């Protein structure tokens, strides 16, 4: 057997990489740097998207369209949706934590393709900037994040085209990331490590990446056709030229439904890592968790038309998609029951990480239940495109994914920086976020049921009070960001040292120093076959090892 060492994959050019914080602005090949790049970049976009949400909520405090111009309102909500999905949730739950953690979990020194990895990240900031600047040039896209034609063909072309370009770039980034994760998990595993011994997050990322690779290209193709319609005046989706608008919807949701699992499966994985550590108990039902992830992946690919129940789809199709969609509750339910069983009988530290994770469980169950209701055709016919749907998905994307991101930041901050966050401030952050979130989105269920459509800047005055409640909730959510940012800042500047493994966790990333050295381990990567072996008689070798590495590390 010949051993070849391709030049492109040599050591990640240690000497040439800038040191210190400048690393985060460089084309670094280190998976940890890239992970944090994703996280910071995503968080900046979260603040921007949140500010846009603030504009939406201010507009909606009164039933008239008075704060924003009508078309500006549509631009704002389009930007809000696009930024939150493509520049915040997807890059952070996949890119940030995936890049940071997966190589540790498989016992590798880096991702399979470090260069591709860096390219994937660096596609994001330009795409995001483009998207935002389009607002200042000629008006941003204003046909919603779904960009349904013919509206998207008839609104001003410049903004829509820029929107398409930036979503294409972000999709490309996502596909490159997905390929990298699949290759890393399947091919770069430390020999001796079996698939069934991997931490759950690896499985979640494997499932997610399969979805990314199978569905994102379809979105890319669709958007290319849409851009032809706009630029070259072809008629794919333009009924005036004989095109068919429903085909666009099918193609769009073929990606965008799986996209919702791209936003939430990694979050499921992260929760599965966080709960056992702070409950001091093994993850309950590992094998069923794995199967349920794969079940969600398979089902997730065949339910897209539940977004189109009022689009004139034939009855048999509605029926099939109802049943298929509702059945996603089964594998998802398995995961939730397993988490509760993980909590049950544990020794739970009530810290910020666990609070956000449990907040996630509660919020997501509500969002999931309204999802299952939405899946029923006759139910959906009334509430489709109303605030009921807005409430459903914010319960999931915010109450689910964003809560998990916060939980993960509290959990892994010591790993990233070697510093501890202030727990009391963290709990306070949780409390305000949880209250604000529920105040903001729970009333929206009622709004939708009683006749308030979504994507409107003006509404029936009978809904004023409830909308104002919701806006107060949004204000609380915005304010809750402050203690968090303060906490992070304080900790970075003068936070107490955390030590290598403040949580006494058993997953591999904690078995090295915090923050870890460039190639993750000074010596050989440890073989962790029981990442959740809490409460086992024979204690896993960890304390000794991490201390040794501590000395050698700066």
């Amino acid at each position, binding site marked *: 057997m010949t051993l070849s060492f391709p030049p492109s994959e040599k050591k990640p050019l240690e000497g040439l990489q800038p040191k210190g914080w400048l690393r985060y602005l460089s084309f670094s090949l280190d998976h940890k740097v890239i992970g944090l790049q994703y996280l910071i970049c995503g968080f900046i976009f979260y603040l921007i998207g949140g500010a846009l949400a603030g504009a939406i909520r201010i507009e909606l405090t009164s039933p008239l369209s008075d704060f924003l111009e009508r078309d500006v309102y549509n631009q704002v909500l389009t930007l809000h949706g696009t930024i939150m999905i493509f520049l915040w949730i997807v890059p952070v739950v996949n890119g940030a934590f995936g890049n940071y953690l997966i190589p540790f979990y498989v016992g590798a020194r880096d991702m399979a393709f470090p260069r591709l990895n860096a390219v994937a990240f660096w596609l994001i900031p330009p795409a995001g900037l483009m998207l935002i600047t389009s607002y200042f040039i000629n008006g941003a896209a204003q046909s919603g994040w779904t960009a349904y034609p013919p509206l998207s063909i008839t609104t001003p072309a410049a903004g829509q085209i820029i929107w398409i370009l930036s979503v294409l770039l972000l999709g490309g980034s996502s596909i490159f990331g997905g390929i990298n994760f699949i290759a890393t998990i399947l091919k770069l595993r430390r020999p001796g490590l079996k698939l069934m011994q991997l931490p759950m997050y690896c499985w979640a990322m494997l499932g997610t990446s399969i979805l990314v690779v199978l569905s994102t290209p379809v979105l890319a193709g669709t958007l290319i056709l849409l851009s032809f319609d706009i630029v070259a005046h072809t008629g794919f989706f333009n009924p005036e030229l004989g095109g068919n608008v429903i085909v666009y919807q099918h193609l769009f949701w073929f990606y965008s439904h799986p996209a919702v699992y791209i936003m939430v499966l990694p979050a499921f994985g992260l929760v599965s890592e966080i709960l056992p550590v702070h409950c001091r108990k093994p993850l309950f039902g590992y094998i069923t968790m794995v199967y349920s992830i794969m079940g969600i992946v398979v089902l997730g690919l065949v339910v897209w038309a539940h977004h189109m129940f009022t689009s004139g789809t034939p009855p048999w199709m509605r029926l099939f998609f109802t049943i298929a969609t509702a059945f996603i509750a089964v594998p998802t339910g398995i995961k939730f029951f397993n988490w509760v069983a993980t909590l049950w009988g544990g020794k739970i530290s009530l810290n910020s990480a666990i609070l956000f994770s449990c907040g996630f469980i509660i919020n997501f169950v509500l969002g999931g239940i309204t999802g299952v209701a939405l899946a029923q055709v006759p139910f959906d016919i009334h509430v489709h495109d109303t605030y009921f749907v807005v409430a459903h998905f914010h319960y999931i994307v915010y109450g689910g994914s964003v809560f998990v991101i916060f939980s993960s930041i509290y959990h892994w901050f010591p790993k990233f920086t070697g510093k501890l966050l202030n727990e009391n401030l963290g709990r306070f952050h949780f409390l305000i976020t949880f209250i604000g979130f529920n105040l903001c989105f729970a009333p929206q269920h009622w709004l939708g049921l009683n006749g308030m*459509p979504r*994507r409107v800047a003006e509404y029936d005055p009978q809904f004023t009070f409830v909308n104002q409640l919701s806006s107060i909730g949004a204000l609380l959510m915005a304010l809750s960001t402050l203690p968090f940012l303060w906490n992070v800042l304080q900790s970075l500047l003068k936070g107490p040292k955390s030590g290598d493994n403040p949580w006494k966790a058993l997953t591999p990333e904690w078995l090295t120093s915090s923050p870890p050295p460039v190639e993750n381990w000074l010596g050989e990567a440890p073989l962790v076959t029981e990442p959740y072996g809490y409460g086992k008689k024979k204690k896993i070798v960890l304390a000794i090892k991490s201390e040794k590495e501590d000395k050698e590390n700066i």
Partner: protein
Amino acid sequence: MLSPITIISFLVSICLIIGGIWVGNNVNLLPAVASTNAPIYDELFKVLFAIGTILFIGMSGLVIFSLIKFRRKPGDVDDGESIEGNLSLEILWTAIPAIVVLFVGLYSYDIYDRMGGMESLGSHNNHSHHINEERRIWGGIGSSNSIESPLNASSTPLTVDLSAMQFAFIFHYPEGDIISGELHVPVDKPIALTMESKDVIHAFWVPEFRLKQDVIPGQPTILNFTPTKVGRFPIICAELCGPYHGGMRATVVVEKEEDYQQWYKQNAKQVDLEV
């Protein structure tokens, strides 16, 4: 044989289920009922609401209870018990949601059928003569032949054309050649609305009817319903269609037969009356 834990959890579950059913039946989150469709919808809603409440309260209760009961006492540095799984529990919580979901799916199928959603459109809409036969007709829900309202089965539906455009709904009564911005319909009479869009996608939504159907350019679509309550109800455009989407509203006026006839006579074209 029965440990106190079993008894307690049994009692709690019973309370939960009773409570959920009570909530489903007594908490009304929906607007007025004004079509044959609406009571069927509300029936489904009650069931979903009850199930949802039980699941949500149950799950959050478990989580909060665990957080309190199993929180770590100060000074306790031990791990919890190393329990990695339990096959019978796994089977239980795979089976229960599967059964619930299956039940909900079949039940909502039944509801949908009773609303008339499964009927083929050709059957009682052949009279929609003004539609080009070669083009496909797409259907919404809400057939007039709904089982709930036998009184409709005999009467032929009143046909009204709807054309949606940025940013208005225009109704056209082919018989009297009336063009109107308000939809006037007699109460308890089945209506067949033939919808087409002039530009982008709109949606016809009357919350009190629990009915919504996209109005799609290039695809004539039929929506059937039977109003059952006299009154004025808002017609709302529910699909983003441009800057004035939020202002794209109209009213459906459900009137007593006499009132409707009077309105009709007043507005019908002279030509028609002479014939």
